[in-house]
């Protein structure tokens, strides 16, 4: 039995201790916004926040996150997240969209820590998130736009 704090709500789940957080979210709690892509922290589709920092839920055993504030795409909130999501919509970033929960999580975290990221900053922060549709041109543009909307300079 594990006790988890997810998006401000406490959940009790009866799973083996080595079960990755990703599969607890998906199979046990039916919170499906967080996606499965690779199972070994290679693609970023499963990105969640642990105590506010992006982490890969596919390799995170549930036993390791019991005293942790977990945030998923369903609970993502705040100015940076809103700016990112509205820039994503304005530029029609997603194609298939499967990786975009992870992209939005990573981009929002970037803007929380760096309100005016350069292209190089964006490349560093976002290169762990694969988009097989290669929407990268728009991801970059949307992060700059969100930074602008937040009052950062969003300089390329």
């Amino acid at each position, binding site marked *: 039995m594990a006790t988890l704090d997810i998006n401000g709500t406490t959940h009790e789940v009866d*799973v*083996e201790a080595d*079960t*990755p957080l990703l*599969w607890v979210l*998906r*199979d*046990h709690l*039916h919170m*499906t*916004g*967080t*996606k*499965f*892509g*690779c*199972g*070994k922290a*290679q*693609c970023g*589709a499963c990105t969640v926040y642990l105590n506010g920092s992006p982490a890969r839920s596919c390799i995170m055993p549930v036993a390791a996150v019991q005293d942790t504030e977990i945030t*998923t*795409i*369903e609970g993502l909130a705040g100015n940076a997240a809103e700016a990112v*999501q509205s820039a*994503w*919509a*304005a530029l*029609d*970033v*997603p*194609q*298939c*969209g*499967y*990786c*975009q*929960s992870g992209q*939005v999580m990573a981009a929002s975290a970037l803007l929380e820590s760096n309100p005016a990221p350069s292209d190089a900053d*964006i*490349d*560093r922060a*976002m*290169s*762990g*998130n*694969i*988009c*097989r*549709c*290669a*929407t*990268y*041109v*728009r*991801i*970059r543009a949307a992060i700059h736009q969100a930074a602008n909307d937040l009052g950062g300079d969003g300089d390329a």
Partner: protein
Amino acid sequence: MRRFERQLAKISSPHLSRRRFVAATATVAGGLMVGFRATSGAAQGEAAGAPSPTPNPFEAYIQIDSEHQVTVLSAHMEGGQGIYAGLATLVAEELDADWSQMQATGASGNISFYGNMAMGGAFQLTGGSTAMASSWQRYRQAGAVARALLVAAAAETWGVAASEITVEKGVLAHASGKTGQFGEFVSAAAALPVPDKVKLKDSSQWSYIGNEDLRRPDTENKTRGQQDYTIDVMLPGMLTAVLKRAPRFGATVRSYNADPIMAMPGVVNVVATPRGVAVVAKSYWEALKARDALEIEWDESAAEKRGTAGLMESYRTEADDGSGVRVHTVGDAAGALDDAAEVVAADFEFPYLAHAAMEPLNAVGRYQNGVFEIWAGHQMPDYYQAAAAQILGIAPDKVKLHVMMTGGFFGRRATPDADVIVETASIVKAMGEGVAVRVQWSREDDMTGGRYRPMYFHRVAAGLDDNGKLSAWKHHIVGQSILKGTVFESALMADGVDSTSVEGVDNMPYAIPNQSVILSTTDVGIPVLWWRSVGHTHTAYAVETMMDDLARKAGRDPVDFRRDMLRDFPRHLGVLELVAEKAGWGVAPPEGIHRGIALHASFGTYVAEVAEVSVRENGNWKVERVVCAVDCGTAVNPDVIRAQMEGGIGFALAGIVHGEITLTDGVVDQDNYDSYPVLRINEMPSVEVHIVDSEEAPSGVGEPGVPPLGPAVANALMSATGERKRILPLGTRV
């Protein structure tokens, strides 16, 4: 693929072909026998082009609810290419709907409604970049008929003449002051007789077609984690199955012992299927752990045990031998080569490539009350329906497909062996009535599971005459056929030639007086499949890097050199001229930047690209910028076209820089994104897309952005280094 389409259209056209297609589909790879479902609509036979008689749009294509939400029922699966937005645009245009009320969803189950009109209409297919071409008449007509019916219903309700009613942004209005919305009249409208004829708008009246400002109806959910894919389907009591498949293609199960894993947490059952042994458990993690612990003894007597290095050597030997099937002959290429003043001779090697879509392959199935339901990314729905029906021993119309939003496909969800569909149906059958099962492939299953872009060897020799004109082209391609051994073989392969092996070489636009194209189709047990732009992925690379070398040899600018040979091909020439102009071709590039250009038409769409490459002192190189010109006829959704060019460029770049599946003694060496890298954001160039203004009928954009990118980049690297790369992938260093 154009010839492929023509052949497909021919065999599936109503006059000769339906029967032949049924015969062709009677035998399926993998030993599964299915029959293609005949439907009344298809049997009646419609001509390619516009469907006739017009179906009732409220039955076939358009749903309107009481909140006035308009949902377009799409004949084509959406997996990122933007067809839901495209079809919503066509319907909204003729319906005079408000864009904010538009949505789309996948549909299947009636070939007369959803048959692919670009391929003759006798079966449903998402593929070959045909969706917009198939839909252009059909969905505009559906919108126009729906509008006429709604107006007629309003006229009857209000007691006014239909001709006096206007429709604007989803609002019906009459000068008397009466107004209403679609949802109020849809029930009455659906019961009215469908008009024989409706007039479609003239292009000057369009407000949505060609509109830059439309945003895709699925974007909002996709940015908030609220879009459901197959992996998100949750049914009561649903179990998860993970399969253990043979380490070598072609091996079969000799024996296994399920007992040791039956006691593992969550495990419910172990089921043998034609594709491997499935561990069925309460959750994915439990199924995966038990699957990994399951021990199976394989019978490898029929397995493919060769590796890719040895196979490539054998391909080279085939080319040395020089014999093969003559695909295309014009004049006397060998003689002209003998007489040539200059000759460029080159060998090319192209590896196997995995699709590696983000959503690993999956499907959800349940058999209940005599009906089998299956949720998945269905690129070939009727075919999957027939395959599932065969396994379950039920009539095809008792198989209900749910066409899910799909996390990328690139061709991988159109499998002639119906891979995940067969697995799911087999497991559901074993589990019995009412048990919902999700079959989920791991990333490793997906990457090692075959259905790759085939490996190819090309040997090309081309000659310039005394005037520097291209006079001879001799081209030998060696590799596996995608169609051979599949349901399509007997219908689509003529004289042993799989057109997908040679498309892009046997139909070059360039005026070359002597041409010879030869194909050697190899027999290898590694399953292969169409991979975004199919044969053009390798033929464009060979042809367009050769053109660059030949221009160099002739002392000509590569644009001028091509221009001279394109006099009869204005659309090719149009994109070439446009991209040259927009990229500043002819003006020296900035310091440290090297340019290359390439041109290729595929799937009826013409694309030229200029790549700008930088090379560092340590040999690391990067594509900094790509300028793209595309002519896809009428630009229905300019922003979607732009997105597909951007994405196609990134997808192609991943392939030429990194993409390589190798096998050692028949075992695949790569199994995840660490060993099979795809493109990441730090490698993505800036992209500039220019769309040719055109009133031609629209053609597809999902694939055609891919082929020119590889040769454009290779030609830029040639400019930078003076070294020609002909073995792919290129790697990250020169």
